[in-house]
C-alpha cells in the first residue's frame, strides 16, 4: 500500500526540513512526499530549491502562484496524491518513524477509511513537553464539546474520503477549524474514525503557533453555525 504524505507549508522554513526528514526516516518505504508551498515569504523557497536539486524520486514539490490558504492547499495536495492512503502532516510536526507502517497495517486489519492516533507534544529542540490528550472518537461528545481531541498530523484516510470530504475554505480555514468540520462531516455520514493508541506524531508546541492566537469566541460561533447547517442536511 502506497502512502502519500501531504505537507502544506507556509512560512515554516525552520521546521519544514525536520518534518520532511521524518518522512525520509519512515520504516515503510512505499511512500511519496508532496509538499505544497502556499507562497511563503521566509526562506522556505531556498530549502525547497535545494530539495528539488537532490533529485529524490518520491518527492514532489508544488508552489501556489498566490496564497490560497490552508484548506485550499490541503485539498490541492489531496488531489495530487497518488497513494492509496493519505497521511496528513503539518509542516512543523514530526511523523514517528513507524507512522506509515502502523497506518498501513491498521488499514489492512480494520478495513477502515479514516484513522488517527496518539501524539506527543515537543518543544523547539524536540524536547518532550507532554502527552497529548487523545481519545476514542465519539460524535455526540465531539459536538457537545465543540472539539474532537484529534491531532491532525496523526490522521490518515483513503483517497475516496479525500475526494468526498474536502476541507472547508473561508471562515473554517481562517479560524483554523477546517479539520474539525471535515471530521464531523465524515463521522456524521456514519464512517468510523478509528483510533490507534500508538504515538504517530510529535506535535510542535510553539508559543508562536496559530492555534494559540485564534479568537475563541469566533470559533465557538462558527462551530454552532456549522452544526445548524449539518442538522439541516441530515
Amino acid at each position, binding site marked *: 500500500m502506497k502512502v502519500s504524505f501531504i505537507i502544506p507549508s507556509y512560512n515554516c*522554513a*525552520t*521546521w519544514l526540513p525536520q518534518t520532511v526528514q521524518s518522512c525520509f526516516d519512515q520504516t515503510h518505504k512505499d511512500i511519496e512526499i508532496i509538499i505544497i508551498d502556499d507562497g511563503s515569504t521566509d526562506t522556505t523557497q*531556498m*530549502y525547497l530549491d535545494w530539495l528539488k536539486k537532490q533529485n529524490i524520486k518520491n518527492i514532489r514539490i508544488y508552489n501556489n502562484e498566490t496564497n490560497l490558504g490552508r484548506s485550499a492547499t490541503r485539498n490541492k495536495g489531496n488531489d495530487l496524491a497518488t497513494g492509496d492512503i493519505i497521511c496528513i502532516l503539518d509542516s512543523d510536526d514530526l511523523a514517528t518513524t513507524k507512522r506509515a507502517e502502523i497506518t498501513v497495517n491498521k488499514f489492512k486489519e480494520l478495513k477502515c477509511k479514516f484513522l488517527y492516533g496518539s501524539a506527543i507534544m515537543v518543544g523547539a*529542540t524536540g524536547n518532550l513537553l507532554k502527552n497529548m490528550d487523545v481519545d476514542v472518537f465519539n460524535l455526540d461528545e465531539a459536538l457537545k464539546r465543540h472539539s474532537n481531541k484529534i491531532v491532525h498530523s496523526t490522521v490518515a484516510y483513503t483517497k475516496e474520503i479525500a475526494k468526498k470530504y474536502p476541507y472547508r475554505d473561508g471562515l473554517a480555514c481562517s479560524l483554523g477549524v477546517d479539520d474539525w468540520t471535515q471530521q464531523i462531516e465524515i463521522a456524521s455520514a456514519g464512517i468510523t474514525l478509528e483510533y490507534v493508541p500508538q504515538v504517530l506524531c510529535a506535535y510542535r508546541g510553539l508559543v508562536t503557533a496559530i492555534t494559540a492566537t485564534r479568537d475563541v469566541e469566533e470559533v465557538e460561533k462558527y462551530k454552532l453555525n456549522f452544526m445548524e447547517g449539518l442538522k439541516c442536511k441530515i
Partner: protein
Amino acid sequence: MLSFIIPVYKPDLQIFRKCLKSLKVQSLEEWEAIFVLDGEDIPAEAEITAVLPKGKYKIITIPHSGVQKARNLGAKSAKYKYWIFWDCDCIIECHSAKAWIDIFEKRPEVGFIYSGYKFLEENGAILSQPFDPFTLKIRNYITTCSPLRKTLYPGWDESLKSLQDWDFWLSVVEKGGKGFFMEGYSFSTASPTEDSISGEGCTDENWLDRMDAVTKKHKIKQNDVCVSSIEDRLEGIRFAKLIGADYYDVPNDKPNRYKTIVQLGFSFTMNTKTHSHVFSKKSQKKILFWTSQNITEINNSVSLKALYHYSNSINKICTQYCEDLESQSVLKRAGFKVEVMPLPIVNTDEIEAYPKEPKFLVDAVGHYEELMGIVERSIPDIKLENVNGRNNLKDYIGLISLTSDHVLDSTIKRALLTGKIVISNVKQPFCGFIDDYEVVDKFIPEMVDRIRKASLKKDNIPAVNYYKRVYSTKKILEVINEG
C-alpha cells in the same frame, strides 16, 4: 630511495645495536647506510657487520675530525636521491622512512620533512611545530635527523662550534627548501645532555656569541621585541610578524638581548610557571595582553586567593591591556590594573570569493552547542562545521560564534578581516549580534533565517574596511617604543 649518513664516534654499543636493528627491520626496502667512523672503531664496525646484511651499508674510516666533517665526507658516497643525516643513538620508528618517501614522491614542493621525537629512558619527548621560515630564523626546531632531497644539501659548516643543525636548515631553506611538518614521532633517542642539544662547550656565557655566529652568517636581524603566546602559538606568530618582532614561546630560557617582551594571554589553569617565566628578566619591559580565554577563566575557575596573588605580582611588573570595556571590568574586579587596547590583528589571508557550496564555521559552547545541533537539522541545504583548530576560514561563507565570554576574539576578528559574515553573541559592529533568548522557540528560527540570508551574500567589504581602521598597529607600536 633513502641514504642514511651516520657518523660514528665512540657510541654506546648497546644503543648502537638497537639503532642498527631498527634500520634493518624498517618497512622501507630501498635504503642504504653510510657509516663514517670518526676515528677507528673496531667494536662499532663489528656491530655493523653483525647486524646489517651485506650490500646495505658502506663503512668509511677517517682519522677523528669532528661530526660535521664526517657528515660531509659520508654525503659524497650517498647514492640515493633522498638523504638523511642520522645519529648512531637514534632508533627509527618502523614506518617513518616509508612515510617520508611517500610524501617526497607525492609532493614535489616538499624539500625536507621533520617530526618530533621521543626519549628512550623516560617519557619525555621533543615536539616540533609547523614549518615557517619566520620562526626558524629565531630558534631551530628541526632535528638533524630529518630527511631532505639531496639537491638541497648545503654542506655542514665545519667552522661552527654550536648550532650547526640550525645553520644547516637555514641554509636548506635559503636554497629554496620547503619544510613539511609530519605530526607525531619518527624516532627515539637517548636523553640529551647540555652538550648534545646545542653543541660542545655551549654555556650560557658564550650562548650569545654562538647565536651571533649563525645570525650574522644568515643576515638575521636582531630584534628588540619578542612575542610569546603559549596559549595560541599561531596567533602569537601572526602578531609578531605584524609588529616586526621575534616570536618564541619562552624567550628567557637562554640569554638574549630583548628589551621588551609582549605576551598574549596569561592562563591561570595551565602553564602558570611558564607564563611567569617569560617575565623573569628584570631589565625587560613587559606588556601583557589579556585574551578572551583568560576572561573566561577568571569568570569561572580561578579562586579569589589566586587572583589576589597574581594581580599583586602582575600589576607590579607588567603593563596590561585588554580587548574591550567588558573585559576590563572583569579584570578590574579581579584586581588587575588594565587599560583597553584591542590587540591589533592583520589578515594574512587574502580576501577571496565565498565558496560555491554554502558552508559556515561554528564556534559554539555550552547550551549554544546543543541549539546549533537543532539548527543544523533545520538547514540541510547549508553545511555547518565545528571549529577544530584545523579549519581554514576561506572555505566558509561565515562564522557563527556563540561563546561564553561575549568578547570579540581572534577567530571573529580574522573572520571579519577576511570579509566573512559573522553571526555572534558579541555586541560589536558587524558581529551580527543575536540575543541569548530564553525562549528557544525564537532563537532557532531567527538563527535559521539569519544563516539562510547570509548564505546569499557575496562579500562583507564594509566590515573589512571598518576593522582595518580599528586594528591598526600604530598604537601598540607607540606603547612598545615609548620610554
